[in-house]
């Protein structure tokens, strides 16, 4: 009998994705566990293996199609087995040049046994407008009724479908009046980033504190280690010093390594130090997480950073490598700028910005000398952390990076 392979629930609130490409064609014979297709979910591209051996009878969704958990992706069976007909939604052809080939049509009827979410017509219209799937919203009203507020909240949650298309449409219609425009599709990753950024700005009361660090000595240490590691054929960057300094200060100020459960009114201080590293990729920002940074030495950290960054650019990171962070570092100094005000990676409470290192004249013991200087910033959630805490945190942090000896004592 033919089996239908659905887009599986990969957990952690991921319920949509995009088919990047099919690795098999209809009529092809596949073995169990043979990769069938590549799917872009959250911030990773994953290969989905075949659940069994057989002939590919039907691909139900075209490449590039948006898919949701539970959608039938492919039917596998013996040649001649009957295939049921539905496919995933096809994109509305509103600006159609040129038209895609006809595909199969979605049936309107809901599958038997699947209850409709309880929501009024106006709330359902709002959900469509904000791109929220009501099936994934928990209603807070009487008898589980979904309210407008529930829909708006879902729209603002990063894991929810991003309402970007609509939000961005303000003034878009007129754009074409003022001159020629090029229309580019918004990628799935871009939508996720946009949703996450907007949500973070709405959730947290961002404040940024900037401090200056003298990294002359640290840089010296870094050069020594780098030469040694590279002589052994490895790779080394300066980032591990900052990770280690950060972990040390986070241990002293645990509120910066925390999340807040607002519903229960509880602060969750994390007893683990998983540091997210913002990586710039051609498709957009990706933040892989270095797990247990406190238990790894700097050489190990350097190797892991190189590996994660490379695979982030290749889009081959596993989903678990993008989750579970407790604090994040964004290293934007290499690209220039004095300092920036990064956006917190939810549900964390702080993000550290590392800015450009440059030689600057500095007054030391009454004399002007040339030192390697840099600005370091922390953007934190002022709802839960006071400004004074932020200042103390940064004073300690720059102290550690300015004095590698002190840092060594804290490893």
């Amino acid at each position, binding site marked *: 009998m033919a089996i239908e392979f659905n887009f599986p629930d990969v957990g952690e609130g991921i319920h949509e994705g995009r088919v990047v490409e099919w690795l098999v064609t209809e009529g092809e014979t596949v073995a169990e566990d043979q990769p069938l297709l590549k799917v872009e979910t959250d911030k990773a591209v994953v290969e989905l293996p075949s659940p069994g051996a057989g002939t590919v009878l039907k691909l139900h969704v075209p490449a590039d199609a948006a898919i949701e958990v539970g959608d039938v992706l492919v039917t596998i069976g013996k040649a001649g087995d009957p295939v049921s007909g539905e496919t995933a939604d096809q994109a509305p052809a509103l600006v159609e040049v040129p038209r895609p080939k*006809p595909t199969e*049509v979605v049936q*309107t009827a809901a599958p038997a046994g699947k209850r409709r979410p*309880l929501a*009024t017509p106006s709330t359902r219209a709002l959900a469509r407008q904000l791109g929220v799937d009501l099936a994934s919203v928990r209603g807070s009203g009487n008898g589980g*009724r979904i309210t407008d507020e529930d829909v708006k909240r879902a729209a603002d949650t990063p894991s929810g479908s991003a309402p970007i298309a609509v939000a961005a449409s303000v003034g878009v219609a007129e754009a074409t009046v003022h001159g020629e425009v090029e229309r580019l599709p918004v990628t799935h990753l871009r939508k996720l980033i946009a949703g996450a950024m907007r949500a973070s700005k709405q959730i947290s009361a961002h404040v940024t504190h900037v401090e200056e660090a003298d990294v002359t000595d640290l840089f010296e240490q870094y050069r020594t280690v780098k030469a040694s590691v590279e002589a052994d054929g490895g790779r080394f960057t300066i980032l591990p010093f900052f990770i280690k300094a950060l972990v040390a200060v986070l241990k002293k100020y645990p509120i910066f390594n925390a999340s807040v459960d607002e519903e229960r009114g509880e602060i969750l201080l994390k007893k683990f130090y998983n540091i997210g590293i913002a990586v710039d990729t051609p498709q957009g920002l990706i933040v892989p997480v270095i797990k247990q940074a406190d238990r790894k030495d700097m050489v190990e950290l350097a190797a892991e950073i190189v590996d994660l960054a490379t695979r982030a650019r290749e889009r081959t990171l596993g989903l678990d490598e993008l989750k579970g962070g407790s604090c994040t570092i964004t290293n934007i100094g290499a690209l220039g700028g004095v300092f920036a005000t990064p956006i917190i990676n939810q549900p964390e409470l702080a993000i550290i910005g590392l800015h450009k290192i440059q030689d600057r004249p500095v007054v030391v013991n009454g004399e002007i000398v040339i030192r390697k200087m840099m600005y370091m910033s922390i953007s934190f959630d002022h709802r839960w952390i006071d400004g004074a805490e932020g200042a103390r945190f940064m004073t300690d942090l720059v102290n550690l990076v300015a004095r590698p000896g002190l840092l060594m004592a804290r490893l």
Partner: protein
Amino acid sequence: MVVGSVSRGCQVVVVGAGPGGYVAALRLAQLGKDVILVDKGPRLGGVCLNVGCIPSKALIHVADLAYEVQHGQSMGLNVDGLSIDLPKMVAWKDGIVDRLTGGVEFLCSKNDVEVVYGSARFISDRSLEVAGDDGVIEIQFETAVIATGSKAMELPNLPFDGDRVIGSTEALSLQEVPPRLVVVGAGYIGLELGTVYAKLGSEVTVVEFLPEIMPDLDRDAAKALQRRLKKLKIKLLLNHRAESYDAGEDPVLVAVGPDDKEIRIPADLVMMSVGRVPRSADLGLEKIGVATDGKGFITVNDKQQTNVPGIYAIGDVAGGMLLAHKAYQEAKVAAEVIAGEPAAFDNVAIPAVVYTDPEIAWTGLTETEAVDQGYEIVTGTFNFKASGRAMTLDSTDGFVKAIADAQTKQLLGVIAVGRGVSELIGEATLALEMGAFLEDVGLTIHAHPTMSEAFQEAVEAALGKAVHQVNK
């Protein structure tokens, strides 16, 4: 393109000007689209306005009046010498049709919707040709909405002859009341028009192939209707297949019953109402690859999109319930989707009304559907025999039944049988769309004395706290 023909362009072409098509065209025009509406003509409005909903309701109203004034003796009303002028009745009905179809034309012109008369056929997924009285023109479009509706199904052994074997269209414009009318098919159209002629004086026999009338109808409702049909002296021949018609000296319709027993029914006129089929066959759909189901209905998604990008379908031709108000809603959804708005057909309930005597109206899930969907249900019924308002109308036939989820008490469906219940089903549909619980309806004050009180009473019965009847 045919040499010498005219070519036109527009953003959206809508094919068919029935309730689906004209609403889609008007809404598209309101949304700023440049629209051409194509219709076979001669008048806009489709089956609904011309030969369906509206004209049939006009005749039903007059037939009801005629019947009632002759049956008011118990209320002290004695009428002698009532005469029925059918040509005048039909002319009055035609006047209503003219006013309404003229209204659609007026709205089209005020909204700058251009109307082209003729039969449309797709040449490609971006163009179609319209064959009209003035030749063939080609229309190029960016988007097309197919709204060609449905038509009465014909049986090969009983083809329409336009005279003695007719469809519902002709039955709406008869010039004399047939002494003996045989209706083939006990669906809602056959029963509505059969009742009209029974009340106007015809001897009516309804021949139905299936063992029951309107098989999808709630069985309590079907029973109530059947009782009333008997009172109206309408003969019901269930389990009988209409075979042939002999229009000779003693005209008879031959039907075959169980055990192949042949029965000959005297029939001056035979009206066929054995179902409706989509008008999708001559549109050239296969040329552009638009998918249809086994019965010819066009397959669409909840945005009314067919499998061919840029081609939409709405109303009867898109299947589902063949109802004008379903087409209205689908038309608005299609127009808004085409205009880039996030519309979708996501209605919880599509109400349906049958204008028999008594009227039958329902919305949401039937008991069977609710159970099939896995609900444990609770129902509550209020009988019009206990209704003050029904007694004052001398119409105590029927009931209102509420169906709810036994656990959550959410209202799932309502069925009503009785005089004027067509006006009561709107409230029930609103309750369903708003996701009402039984308590919501039970705690809403309903005006007294009205037929609509029965809805509140039925809901209270489902909650086990009815006041005006004994709780089960």
